[in-house]
C-alpha cells in the first residue's frame, strides 16, 4: 500500500511539473506585453521597459521558468505582478473559503446521493421514476442559475440569507454558515442528481448478482445484504463519480463565488488570468493540480480499503 501511495505521489509530482511548464510557456506566449498591461494605456515606452526590467521579463524565458521552479521548490511562489502580494498569502486566505464550500457540498452530495440512489434502486416503481425524472431536471439546470434563483427568492425577497458573502475576519461562525448556505445548495443540486443516478445503477447491478441470491437463500436479512455487501461492492462506482464531481466543482465554484462575492479561489483565478498575472496564475494552477492529485489518490486508497478486490499491490 505504501509503495502504491509513493508511486502515485511520484507520478503526481511529475504531472505537476509538466503542467507547470506547459502553463508557464502558454501564458507567456498569449500574454503580450505584461508590463504594459500593468501600467495601463497611458504608459510610455520607457516606463514599459523599466517595468519589464523590474519584473525580470528581460531575462530568457527558460531561465525565468527554472528560477520559478527553484523558488517554488523552496516554498516561494513569488508575488503578484499587479499587487505585490505574495502568492502564498493569497492562496492561504482563499483556499479555506473554497475548500470549506467544496467539502461541505461534497459531504452533503455523498449523503443525499447515496440515500436517494439506494432508495430508488431498492424500491423501484414510482419512486425510481420520480428520481429518474428529477435527475434529468437537476442535471439540466446549471449551478449558477440555481444560485441566482436562490439569491432572488431566499436572500432578496425573504431576507433569510445574505445576498453576498459577509465573511470577514470579524465575523463569527454564523456568518460562515449563512454566507455558505446558498452557494453550497447551488453547487450540490447537480452533484446530488448525477451522483444518485450512478449509485442507483451500481446498486441495481449488484442486487442482480448471483452472490445476492446466495445470501438471500441463506436467510440473511435484506438490510444486512444491502448495507454490508451490496453497498460495499457498489461503492467504487459512487466514489469515482464523487471524485469526478469534486474536480468538476473546482470549475463550477468559480462562477458561484463571483455571484456570491465569496473571497475564494474563483475571483483570484479569474482576475489573475485576465491580467496575465503569471505568478498568481501559476499558484492557482498548482493548487488545482494538487487538489486533483490528492483527490484521485484518496479515492484509490478508499476504494482499495472498502473493496479488497480492487486493491492494488
Amino acid at each position: 500500500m505504501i509503495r502504491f501511495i509513493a508511486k502515485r505521489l511520484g507520478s503526481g509530482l511529475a504531472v505537476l511539473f509538466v503542467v507547470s511548464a506547459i502553463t508557464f510557456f502558454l501564458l507567456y506566449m498569449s500574454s503580450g506585453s505584461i508590463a504594459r498591461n500593468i501600467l495601463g494605456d497611458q504608459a510610455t515606452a520607457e516606463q514599459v521597459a523599466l517595468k519589464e526590467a523590474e519584473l525580470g521579463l528581460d531575462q530568457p524565458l527558460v531561465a525565468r521558468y527554472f528560477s520559478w521552479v527553484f523558488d517554488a521548490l523552496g516554498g516561494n511562489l513569488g508575488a503578484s505582478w499587479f499587487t505585490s502580494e505574495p502568492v502564498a498569502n493569497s492562496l492561504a486566505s482563499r483556499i479555506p473559503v473554497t475548500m470549506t464550500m467544496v467539502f461541505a457540498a461534497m459531504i452533503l452530495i455523498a449523503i443525499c446521493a447515496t440515500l436517494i440512489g439506494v432508495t430508488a434502486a431498492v424500491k423501484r416503481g414510482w419512486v425510481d421514476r420520480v428520481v429518474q425524472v428529477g435527475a434529468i431536471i437537476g442535471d439540466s439546470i446549471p449551478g449558477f442559475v440555481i444560485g441566482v434563483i436562490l439569491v432572488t427568492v431566499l436572500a432578496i425577497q425573504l431576507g433569510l440569507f445574505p445576498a453576498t458573502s459577509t465573511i470577514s475576519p470579524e465575523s463569527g461562525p454564523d456568518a460562515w454558515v449563512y454566507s455558505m448556505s446558498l452557494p453550497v445548495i447551488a453547487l450540490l443540486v447537480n452533484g446530488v442528481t448525477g451522483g444518485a443516478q450512478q449509485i442507483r445503477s451500481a446498486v441495481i447491478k449488484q442486487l442482480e448478482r448471483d452472490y445476492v441470491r446466495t445470501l438471500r437463500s441463506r436467510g440473511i436479512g435484506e438490510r444486512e445484504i444491502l448495507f454490508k455487501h451490496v453497498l460495499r461492492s457498489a461503492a467504487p462506482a459512487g466514489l469515482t463519480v464523487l471524485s469526478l464531481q469534486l474536480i468538476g466543482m473546482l470549475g463550477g465554484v468559480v462562477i458561484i463565488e463571483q455571484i456570491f462575492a465569496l473571497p475564494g479561489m474563483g475571483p483570484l483565478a479569474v482576475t489573475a488570468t485576465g491580467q496575465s498575472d503569471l505568478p498568481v496564475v501559476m499558484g492557482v494552477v498548482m493548487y488545482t493540480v494538487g487538489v486533483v492529485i490528492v483527490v484521485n489518490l484518496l479515492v484509490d486508497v478508499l476504494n482499495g480499503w472498502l473493496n479488497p478486490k480492487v486493491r492494488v499491490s
Partner: protein
Amino acid sequence: MKLGPKAAATALTVSAALALTACGGAANSGPAAGAAATALTIGTIQDVRSWDPAQAHVGHVLQPYQAVYDSLILREPDGKLSPLLATGWKYNDTNTKLTVDLRTDVTFSDGAKFDAEAAKANMDHFKKANGPQLAQLAAVQDVAVVDADTIDINLATPDPALEYFLSQAAGLMGSPTALGTEGIKTEPAGSGPYVMDKAGSVKDSQTVFNARQDYWNKDLQKYQKLTFKILADITARTNALVSGQVDATILDPKTGKQAEGAKMKLAANEVDWQGLLLMDRDGTKNAPLKDVKVRQAINYAFDRKTILDQVMLGQGTPTSQPFGKESGAWTEGLENHYSYDPAKAKQLLKEAGYENGVTLEIPGIPNFETQISVVKQQLADVGITLNVGAALTNTFTSDVAAQKYTTMYFSLFQGEPTVAINQIISTKALYNPFKNADPELDAKIEAVRTGGADAGKLAQDVNKYVVDQAWFAPLFRVNQMYYHNSKVDVVPQIQQAVPSIYNYSPAK
C-alpha cells in the same frame, strides 16, 4: 444492524470533517460592527493593487485612496479646484513654475508631519515609482522646497492639467517615513479622514476604515466607519444593493432597472464616450480611410439616437464629438455635426470613388457585442462592410500600439482637454497608433498646452479639427449608472464614474 468498523470509521471521518468545516469560522469570531448610524458601505468593482499613493489610479480606483490620503488640491463635484493640503497656488508668467503654499498643521496617521519636504518627497517618489499615472507628472522637471510651507514645481513644458493632476493620483500625500517601504503597499499611511482597519480588511473582499480621531478637516469626514466591499460581478453588486448590504454601487442600464424596482436612487453622470476610432487616417493598411469623405460617410451612417435607445436603454446623449461636456473643449455646435443621413453617406462614398463599397476590419470587444452588431448593420446600409475579428484580449494595448487595428469600437474616458489629447489625438497617444499628424493640428495642440487657464477654450479648435476631419465616429456619451439607497445622499463627480469619497453624506 450492527455497524462494522469501517462504517463506524466512515461516520467518524464525516463528522470530523463537518466539525472542521464549522471550526473554520470559529477562529474568526470577533466584535460585531458598530456605529451603524454613521457607517457607509460602498460596493466597488476592484480592490486597490497597492496602497502606495504613487500606485493610485483614476476613476473607480481613486476613491479608496481619498479615504486615507489627502490630496494637495481638492476637486469639487463640479470640477472647481479648491484648497486642501495646499492653501493656494500660482503660476509664473510663462506657466513653467507653479508655486504652492501648504498647510502646516497636518500630521500623517503614523505621526510624521506634513510640510514642504514631505510634499517634495511624495512628488519625487511618484516620479520614481513608475505607477500607472506617472504621466500626470511627466511635465514636472523637479520640485524645490522654498520654505517650510512652500514648494516650487518646475516644469519642463507647460501643462495646463497640472493643477487638476494635483487633485488626483499625483496630488495624494503619503507619510514621508513610509514612502518606498514594503509596509505602505498593504497599509496606507496618509493624512486623510479615515485610517484603515487592517484586522477587519481582507484583500479583494473588503476594506474597512475608521474615522481618524484628530482629523484636521471635519467637513470631509462624514462617517465613523467606511467599508469598501469588493464586488467584481455586476449581479453580486445588484443583489448586495437591493438587499441592503451596500449603500451605493455602480450598475448598468439593465441592472439599474432592478435597482429602481427596489426604490434605489440614481446619480447619473456622463463620463465616457463610445464609438469608432478611425485610426488609419493615412491609409497605411486600409487605403479608403485616408479619404476624409469616407470617414465622414461613416459618421453619417449612424442613427445615434436609435442605437442609444435600443442598446443603452436611452442612458446617454448622442454626440459627434470626442471631447466631454465639462472639458471646456465641448461645443454645442459640434454635438449633432453628423446627423443620420444615409443618402449623404452614399453620396460621399461615391465622390471618394468608393461607390462599390469599403471594408473595415475591427476587433470584437467583450460586452460590446450588441453595439458592434448594430454598427455593422447601419454601415452595411450605406455600403460599408464591417468585418468583426477576434475579440480583444489582455494584450490589446500592445496590439493597438503595434498598429494591429485600423479601426476599433471602444469606450473611452472623457477627461480634461490635455488628457484627451494625450490619449487619442497627439502622436504620442496610444489610440493614435499610426501617428497621424498635421501641422495645423500640431499648432492647435501646442496652443492648448501653453494656453494655461484658456486651455479648455483653445481645445475647442482641436475638437473642431478632429470632428471636421472625422478622426472618429463618436456615437454617444453614456451615463454611468451610480445607484444608492435612501440612507445616503450622493453627489455625482464630473468626469468620474464613481463619485469622490467626499461626495457621500448621511441622508438628511
